[in-house]
């Protein structure tokens, strides 16, 4: 075999290696920019329209969108020091995964960098150490209006558990996609008043769910799956994200949401640990939290705005369908994040333990 042959192969491998190494971090950007990782899809289209495009125009800072906020990708970026994202829009379970064990993968938020006037308008429950509420989601009683005519739907979780009075199949989440078991819901169904749910009586919660188990048709892994099942009639009642169901209702599907006894939580703005554009990231978050801009998004994507002033800028009809309308907000309670991240004697958080227990419980 000729030397040239091996030289050729060696050269090829070398260049190949160079390409591999250069892929991530060697790009040099001239202009200022913020990379936002959101959930993509329909919501991202309107986020661009209501937030990112006007922000770019006003500040000259370019916003680059990417999706989805895959927890594993965030971990890989931080661990390898090859950080591509700045601002992340993600949900509570993801944030808990990223911050509860060992070193946090998100920046601790510096609230002094945000406008105090706007911060005062934001719902206090969503101002957290690593995250600031962007929009509010909620676990609600979602139902098919083909099965239940308006007014006859189950109005409490106890109703959902009452299979004689409200016949039909139910769907709840399984633990495989990271959605935590709905302890709060299971307890309310068992007669615990909404304001007495915490600290959670775990045994009572599982006993309560065991009673409903035979009537659950599908344990879904993702909310998209749950909403799809409601829309095509695979299920009559689902415990899933209310705003996602409202979005289908606005499109004309025969589904609706009962907000009573809902569990509120937030999709949040976070900054990835070691972000290269931290200052501009804060600027963008500040810009987005503005009431009018939040109203702009909520009129298209029916998640509740985290800025309480936003409702003022919305058509009352749209506002009535949102989980943070003053009327609906009163019917629901906030998920207590503190309880979920509390560690037991084994060093595991309640969240981690609940997911392990859920897996074992389902297999029984």
């Amino acid at each position, binding site marked *: *075999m000729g030397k040239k042959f091996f030289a*050729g192969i060696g050269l090829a491998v070398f260049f190949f290696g160079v390409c591999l190494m250069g892929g991530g971090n060697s790009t040099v950007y001239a202009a200022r920019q913020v990379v936002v990782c959101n959930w993509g899809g329909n919501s991202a289209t309107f986020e661009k329209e209501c937030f990112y495009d006007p922000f770019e125009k006003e500040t000259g800072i370019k916003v680059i969108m990417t999706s989805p906020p895959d927890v594993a990708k965030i971990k890989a970026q931080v661990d390898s020091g090859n950080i591509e994202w700045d601002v992340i829009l993600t949900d509570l379970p993801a944030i808990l*995964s990223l911050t509860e064990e060992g070193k946090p993968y998100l920046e601790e938020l510096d609230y002094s960098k945000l406008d105090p006037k706007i911060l005062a308008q934001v719902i206090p429950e969503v101002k957290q150490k690593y995250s600031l509420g962007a929009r509010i989601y909620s676990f609600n009683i979602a139902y098919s209006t083909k099965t239940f005519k308006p007014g006859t739907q189950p109005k409490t979780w106890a109703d959902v558990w009452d299979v004689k009075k409200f016949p039909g199949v139910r769907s709840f989440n399984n633990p495989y996609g990271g959605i935590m078991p709905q302890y709060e819901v299971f307890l309310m169904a068992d007669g615990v008043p909404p304001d007495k749910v915490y600290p959670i009586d775990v045994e009572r919660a599982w006993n309560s769910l065991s009673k409903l188990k035979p009537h659950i048709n599908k344990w879904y892994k993702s909310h998209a799956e749950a909403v799809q099942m409601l829309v095509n009639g695979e299920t009559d009642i689902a415990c899933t994200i209310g705003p996602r169901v409202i979005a289908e209702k606005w499109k004309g599907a025969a589904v609706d949401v009962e907000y009573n006894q809902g569990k509120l939580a937030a999709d949040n703005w976070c900054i990835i640990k070691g972000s290269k554009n931290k200052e501009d990231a804060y600027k963008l978050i500040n810009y987005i939290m503005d009431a009018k801009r939040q109203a702009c998004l909520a009129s298209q994507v029916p998640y509740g705005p985290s800025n309480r002033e936003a409702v003022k800028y919305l058509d009352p009809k749209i506002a009535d369908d949102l989980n943070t309308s003053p009327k609906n907000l009163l019917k629901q309670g906030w998920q207590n994040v503190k309880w979920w991240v509390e560690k037991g004697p084994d060093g595991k958080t309640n969240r981690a333990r609940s997911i392990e227990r859920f897996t074992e419980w389902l297999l029984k």
Partner: protein
Amino acid sequence: MEKRTSLFGNLFEKAARRPFCLILPLIAYMFVFYVYPLLRMFAMSLFSPDLTSRHYQSFFQTAANLYSLRVTFEISLLVTMGCLLIGYPMSYYLSTCPARKANLLLILVLIPLWTSVLVRTYAWITILGRNGIINQLLQKSGIIEQPLKLIYNQFGLTIGMVHVMMPFMVLSLYSVMVGIDRNLLKAAQNLGASPFRAFRKVFLPLSMPGVLAGSILVFIISVGFFVTPALLGGPRDLMISMVIDQAVEVMLNWGFASAASFILLFFILGIFLISGKMVGFDKLWGKKI
């Protein structure tokens, strides 16, 4: 004729004299994108950060994981048998068709491979679901009153997976069956064997390499299946891939996820070695007897 003297011409000529060189690019590719990541993952499963076997221990200490390993094995076996049961007669028929017709039918077998698994899985929901075609037909014709539960259990899951895996089985079987000399069957019948006996004593043994190759292929791909079991399965159909996914995405425990992946890899290797010992390795590659 003048010899080509360009660098590449020379290289190719030299390479052609040593056919081994022709697989060097593949080896390089596999090394960079398969062997290296695999080794990294193996290291991840053993260090956290010091050398430890705790990830492997925690896998075997949790009942759910062992259960999942068993379910994965059962479902994969069920799917393999389902594919064989439907695929064998189909491939037999295909192998008797004239080439043109066989090609046309083979394209029909292949078309599902061009559609995403997700789409095919959702299609099964619209067919087998509560308001699906089958339940609607049965209800309208008065055969049943309440819809049958055809999905979100092992039944629906098996149907969905058999559909996805069928092309792999049919292609493995067909490639072997088409090479079987039909004169052997005629000879057997000439010597007084009934058509069934001729099939059982002559065709079936000759087609075994295809059966083995197809079964191993389907089984091994099924073991790692993810989308279809998650969407069509019930709460107890916890495939090992779902355990790994949960460890990667939800618990961020990559050490455990790597350990579980290696346990799965050893599990598959074990099955492969046992079946190889039992029937001979050359048969597993689909080599003719």
